[in-house]
């Protein structure tokens, strides 16, 4: 065990820091779902220097560097320290690009990946449906084969950037007679295709962070498929695991913890600093131990990745524990702030833009979404501990 970085990496850290200080004037403002020209230019610059799309081959618009997990981590750390926006993060880049690299045709790779990486081509994901959440494979959106096209009818939900997206990658049941996992295809098509309607989906935070997408006779050429017909479930799963790993980031928890420390140092109750209130302090310390534990767990995963070892249990628990920890941090901030903690919607005296309430609610969505806590526990028990799967049920006829 040695948490020091060797000289190569210390130098690399300096290099990244120098880059950011040199190009400070080009740092774009943060905006909504669709990158601005300024952001696209910044992303292009990052790719050029290897701070974005670092390991993606040059012919597909990436930087083409050899994978080096430590360098990736250093990039993320330095960008965070300097408060600079890092590589664009959207579902096209995090989910579609890896899928295409693994399973796309050469034409799909050369035409779609470069503009996606630059941020010019924005994607949304069409997986979940109102009737298919935890049990995603039961999805019902149908694509009927009319010879040339799949004619799509149905509905998707939780489609976060649908209103801003150019294209969608979408799971559609194209083989209605096949077993449920074997009748799905992974289709990609323009959001401007006739028959698509996007409706914003208001959530408890008060914002429309998601959308519902309705398809009525949407015609998609049969060539616009990734992988083979009926193989969409397996195509999607290759990257779903990637999405799950993104949730529960311990650095986010660390940042929240620091913000709460500031609250406890500055806010008062009956003239007494909240930090001198033993109950809040004790809860803060309980959560700090958890944050440090999750950060240390993250270091363990980093080392496993460097060594190309399987992450094992340390990886399986990240989403469950990380999302819960973030939620608990938000709860502490709200409680410590008392009545100030329930102010929202831009109220006078609202603290930090109402972010704690927003997080408390949004994080509950994360605990529920992307595999509920209940499903996560099944995975930990079955894959991590090797416990038996749920036994098969008797056929419906036997129930009565």
């Amino acid at each position, binding site marked *: 065990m040695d948490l020091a970085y060797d000289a190569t990496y210390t130098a690399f850290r300096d290099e990244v820091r120098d880059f950011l200080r040199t190009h400070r004037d080009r740092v774009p403002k943060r905006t909504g779902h669709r990158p601005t020209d300024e952001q696209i230019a910044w992303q292009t610059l990052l790719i050029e220097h290897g701070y974005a799309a670092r390991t993606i081959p040059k012919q597909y618009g990436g930087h083409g560097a050899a994978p080096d997990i430590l360098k990736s981590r250093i990039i993320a750390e330095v960008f965070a320290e300097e408060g600079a926006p890092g590589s664009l993060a959207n579902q096209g880049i995090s989910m579609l690009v890896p899928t295409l690299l693994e399973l796309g045709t050469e034409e799909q790779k050369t035409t779609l990946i470069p503009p996606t990486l630059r941020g010019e081509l924005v994607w949304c994901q069409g997986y979940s449906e109102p009737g298919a959440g935890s049990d995603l494979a039961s999805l019902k959106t149908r694509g009927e084969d009319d010879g040339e096209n799949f004619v799509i009818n149905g509905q998707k939900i939780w489609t976060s950037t649908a209103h801003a997206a150019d294209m969608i990658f979408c799971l559609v049941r194209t083989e209605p007679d096949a077993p449920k996992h074997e009748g799905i295809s992974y289709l990609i098509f323009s959001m401007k295709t006739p028959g698509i309607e996007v409706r914003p989906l208001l959530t408890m935070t008060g914002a429309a962070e998601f959308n519902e997408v309705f398809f009525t006779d949407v015609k998609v050429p049969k060539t616009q498929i990734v992988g083979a017909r009926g193989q969409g479930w397996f195509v999607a799963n290759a990257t779903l695991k990637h999405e799950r790993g993104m949730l529960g980031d311990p650095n986010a928890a660390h940042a929240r913890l620091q913000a709460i420390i500031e609250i406890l140092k500055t806010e008062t*109750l009956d003239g007494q600093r909240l930090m001198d209130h033993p109950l809040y302090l004790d809860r803060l310390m309980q959560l700090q131990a958890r944050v440090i534990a999750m950060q240390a767990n993250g270091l363990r995963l980093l080392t496993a990745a460097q060594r190309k070892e399987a992450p094992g249990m340390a990886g399986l628990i990240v989403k469950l524990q990380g999302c819960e920890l973030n939620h608990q941090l938000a709860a502490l901030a*709200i409680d410590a702030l008392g*009545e100030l903690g329930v*102010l929202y919607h831009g109220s006078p005296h609202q603290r930090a833009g109402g972010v704690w309430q927003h997080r408390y*609610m949004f994080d509950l969505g994360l605990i*529920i979404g992307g595999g509920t806590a209940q499903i996560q526990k099944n995975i930990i028990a079955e894959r991590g501990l090797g416990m038996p799967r749920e036994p098969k049920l008797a056929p419906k006829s036997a129930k009565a």
Partner: protein
Amino acid sequence: MDFALSPDQIAMQDSLDRTLERVAPLDRVRQIAAQDLPTAPEVRAALAELGAPAVLVPEAHGGLGLGVLDAALLSETLGRHTACAPFVGPCLAALALDLCGSEGQKAVWLPLIASGEASFGVAISEPASGARMAAGVRAENGRLSGQALFVIDFAQAAAFIVADVAGGLHLVAADAPGLTRTALTTIDRTRSVGELVFGDVAAEPLPDRDSRAAIARMRDVGRVLLAADTLGAAQRMLERAVAYAAERQQFGRVIGSFQAVKHLCAEMAAELEPARALVWYAAYAQDALPAEATLTAAHAKAHLGEVGRFVARTATEVFGGIGITDLLGLHYTFKRIGLDRQLLGAPERARRDAAVAQGFIDA
């Protein structure tokens, strides 16, 4: 020896329940919550018609002269329906006037409260919860200066009952010169809280000398009413979760048949059922067991704050993704519980008060 609701109490609660089902269904709640200020004249009118604001007003002043338990049962039902109407404010104002008001003040205001014509806001957050941002109201020669935060039932108040830092109580008209009123928006858009800033405002003192005791009673009764509000909201969330789990299918079976989902629901029920008895007991104690009033009110408030948070979160989990959307409106109860938790003393504060009430520590 009888620990149960009377037939009258059950009938009163049922009647309010049916009325709110009719006048304030989810779609109406959604409209109200989208307004700048939460006002729903028809809900307020329906409540007045049922006598809800009269519940704690003495019969001699046109009220029903009922007890805190009755008020708590109404509050529970209001929470159940995330009803948008002043209730805690008028109830506590009626108590303050009845305990400390002059005969003239009582004669003027109590009938107006009872009929629902005048709503009141109450500004007792600083003594009840502790002062945030060093807020506090100072009284000198009948004039008030300073700041009162988190005033309950702020929006539609004709007047306010205001506690000063020395333990005095004052009646201030909403349009008093020098009074600046600012609405504060919370997560819960079905009730209103606000801020009062007093720039040398003329106020009527409530003349009875024992205003400290009256503030304590307002705090205690207010805590019971908020605990009851949470009870109703949480019970509703549990019922909705159980109903949803009986319908929603995943993996070829209703999710309510999964042991994990069943156990979440069982845990909610196991927490809520004794919490209901605690709310009844605390409410009853306010009138019948004065020695236990402060203690049980503090415990009811704190405990329902914790149980409510647990149920709000767990019920939402049973729903899964749909629970965090606006589609089923579950979040209105979630937020109602969130606001209840923090008003008039968050759990940590209320528990401390419970310890002080037993002499375990000094105030």
